[in-house]
């Protein structure tokens, strides 16, 4: 088998690889092989050349049904950029991003409800505060 020496590996990338290897309970060498394998096989099967990284959704959330388990294609540079702000791996970063997106959309949905909510007649939160 061939031996590959990687020069000029950024320290933070090495630390992430090390941390991921520890998490998966395998050696750094084994982790690097798995990552390279994943990357090359995903690249070759990606339908869209711009969609460089494939993240299985069911692994991202761990709570998806069979319908939701299809892989999604995500721009690798976008994932990499997002990971600069995250302590998680790609899947964790994607989950964090989706959570943040959902929270934002929920907050914005409040604006759609403005002026539309009907409260019970006589309900007065301030009067209730005074009664307690």
């Amino acid at each position, binding site marked *: 088998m061939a031996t590959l020496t990687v020069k000029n590996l950024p320290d933070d990338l090495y630390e992430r690889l090390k941390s991921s290897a520890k998490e998966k309970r395998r050696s750094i060498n084994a982790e690097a092989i798995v990552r390279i394998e994943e990357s090359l096989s995903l690249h070759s099967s990606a339908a869209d050349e711009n969609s460089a990284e494939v993240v299985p959704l069911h692994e991202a959330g761990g709570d998806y049904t069979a319908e939701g388990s299809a892989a999604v294609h995500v721009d690798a540079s976008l994932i990499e950029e997002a990971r600069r702000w995250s302590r998680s791996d790609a899947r964790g970063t994607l989950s964090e991003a989706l959570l943040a997106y*959902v*929270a*934002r*959309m*929920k*907050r*914005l*949905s*409040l*604006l759609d*409800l*403005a*002026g*539309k*909510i*009907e*409260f*019970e007649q006589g*309900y007065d*939160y*301030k009067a*209730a*505060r*005074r009664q*307690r």
Partner: protein
Amino acid sequence: MIMLDTSILSQVLRRNRQPGREIEVQAIRELIASDRPVALPGIVVQEMLSGIRSSVEERAVSTALDGFPIHLADLRAHREAALVFTRCASEGIAVTHIDCLIAAQAMLAGAELFTLDSDFVAIARLTGLVLFEASAANEGFEAPR
């Protein structure tokens, strides 16, 4: 960070708004749309979900409030609230325990409190509570005609 009181949220959401609060309602729109850090005390969530007539509307409001960071009161907040109450009482100002708790949570979070309730003006005068000025959120915004 800006913490919202029930008085302002209720004014934004309710069908029958009090007139003359357009600046504050617009300020909330600006804060949320521009992703300013806005949070809610847990008791405000409870008050907002109380008394909504339709269960469909109640679920929609609940979902929307889910998107905000919710500050649940801990022992420190309750202790601070008690100090706020005592401080106000010593000046002869009657305040409710919930007002004191909301004020305490805002102070402990280092947040400004956005409220329409004048009781908090009295609390702010006697404690470190900082009130949010709606005009600050509307800077650069042209009010609709």
